[in-house]
């Protein structure tokens, strides 16, 4: 395997119970019980599991949004599990995230242009607004959006366009790693396919490492090189997508696979009468 960009070892994450005034804090509730995960440069890894299995928590720990209780997370050889918010900030540009709901992940009171410009200026990737604009327009063109969206507010765009803006926001910073958390589950099927295709192209062009979190195994299979199956905060199975999906070793993986609705073709479908319709 190529050099690992992200190397997580024995990661334990626990959510502290909310402390009430003048009362003892409840013990933290562990969500991840020692997860190991590696992502190589240019590799796309799927993280699957049902709701509550800890896949979103794992993803957020990987990009330093959550601090693990114990364990180590190395990003490009550097330990980030211990870093504070301020020490983390210079690394932020290199690890980006695409959200499930592009509507709520875009500030409703900002135009797309302002949303995309501010991070470029923050990280000093461009010298001035004109350079930012050029770079943003190139990125927009790459993700299939016209430059006219820059003047719009998020609610003026369609769901697919908004998700493309979300992708543009992540890739315009030229990151090394992108976390994609359920990014197509809010889109209709044809838009899903376009967005996944775009993501695959960007990944190849930019040699991106990606973690794709999804409950939809067919999405993971279409895009990912390797897959991790998470159940109740533990990795129950991992390996190359084709191997895991064709020869699942763990009972939980089999249950997940069995839950995929298979298309059953009914040749008489077109001739069927709606119930109660006149003959």
């Amino acid at each position, binding site marked *: 395997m190529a050099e690992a960009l992200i190397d997580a070892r024995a990661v334990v994450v626990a959510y502290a119970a909310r*402390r009430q005034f003048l009362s003892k804090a409840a013990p933290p509730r562990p969500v991840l019980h020692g997860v190991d995960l590696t992502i190589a440069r240019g590799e796309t890894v799927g993280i699957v599991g049902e709701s509550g299995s800890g896949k979103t928590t794992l993803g957020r720990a990987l990009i330093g949004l959550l601090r693990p209780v114990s364990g180590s997370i190395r990003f490009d050889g550097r330990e980030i599990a211990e870093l504070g918010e301020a020490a983390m900030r210079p690394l932020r540009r290199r690890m980006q*995230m695409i959200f499930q709901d592009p509507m709520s992940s875009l500030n*409703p009171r900002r135009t797309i242009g302002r949303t995309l410009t501010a991070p470029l200026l923050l990280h000093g990737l461009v010298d001035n607004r004109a350079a930012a604009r050029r770079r943003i327009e190139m990125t927009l063109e790459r993700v299939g959006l016209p430059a006219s969206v820059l003047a719009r507010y998020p609610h003026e765009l369609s769901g697919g366009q908004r998700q493309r803006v979300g992708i543009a926001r992540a890739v315009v910073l030229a990151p090394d790693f992108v976390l994609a958390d359920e990014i197509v589950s809010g889109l209709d099927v044809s838009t899903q396919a376009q967005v996944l295709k775009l993501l695959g192209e960007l990944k190849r062009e930019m040699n991106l490492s990606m973690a794709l979190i999804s409950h939809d195994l067919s999405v993971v299979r279409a895009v990912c090189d390797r897959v991790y199956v998470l159940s109740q905060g533990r990795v129950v199975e991992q390996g190359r997508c084709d191997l895991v999906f064709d020869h699942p070793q763990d009972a939980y993986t089999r249950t997940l696979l069995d839950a995929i609705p298979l298309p059953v073709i009914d040749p008489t479908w077109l001739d069927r009468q709606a119930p109660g319709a006149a003959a």
Partner: protein
Amino acid sequence: MAEVALNHDAAVAAGPPKLRRRSALRALLAQPKVVFAGGFIVLLILLALFAPVIAPHDPLDQDLLSGTLPPAGFAGAQPGYWLGTDDLGRDVLSRLIYGTRVALTVAFVAAFAAALLGTVLGLFAGFYGGAVDAIVSRLVEIWMAFPPVLLSILIVAIMGSGVRSVIVAIAIIDWTRFARVVRAETMAQAKADYVVAARVLGFGRLAILFREILPNVAPVLLALVTLEMGIAVIVEAILSFVGLSVSSDTPTWGGMIAQGRQIIYQAWWVFAAPLAALFATVLAFNQLGDGLRRALDPVMQR
């Protein structure tokens, strides 16, 4: 597929820019009560600004020979005194017009001061949580246990009477309204993905709080400030009524009500005119605030 996308983009491009603001304004102007209330408040502002030009008489000019003249249309009324005169022969209409100055000064300055104090505390409490939230929340709870009128009288008694004391009293008492609402709204906004996104992009906490969250709290805040202006007008009137606002040579509605109460059987209009002005002004602020809330609050729109 590409053609479909292009057509859609063209349709989007043809739409007017800044649609959101325009639609909020339209939602605002579609409410008749907002138009009436807003118009009334604009009228009050003009009266306050141009009081010396508009008022028919000097509000302090006493003329004992024309005392307690009734308003126009009643028996014994004299031309030029549209709302009659008080027991010292001062023109009620002119005093009413000059009274808008104190009322509006207090309404605007006190409401903004209370909003500033409460918003800053509410933002920090809602965003940082933990100890900051605990301190602010306890402070709010303790604060709200004080009877507000007594507290304001206490503050004015300590600071001495005057418009400035009244403004300080209102700000110190009413910041809790803003702190509570802003805290709750900030907590809700802080959970939104766009805040997580800002963190992922590398923005600092203060930048997130003031540049991402505050603009999304602003609509609720604007409505609340307007409602607070109505409350400030009432509080000022109460303090004037008990003689703790400005000195008696400055006409105020509360002072006029206090004075009119003593001669209510001889000259009811001295009491009724400022009361009506007070009522209409507070009603206008409340209606405008309610209209703003309806037009701008995303929760009520969705």
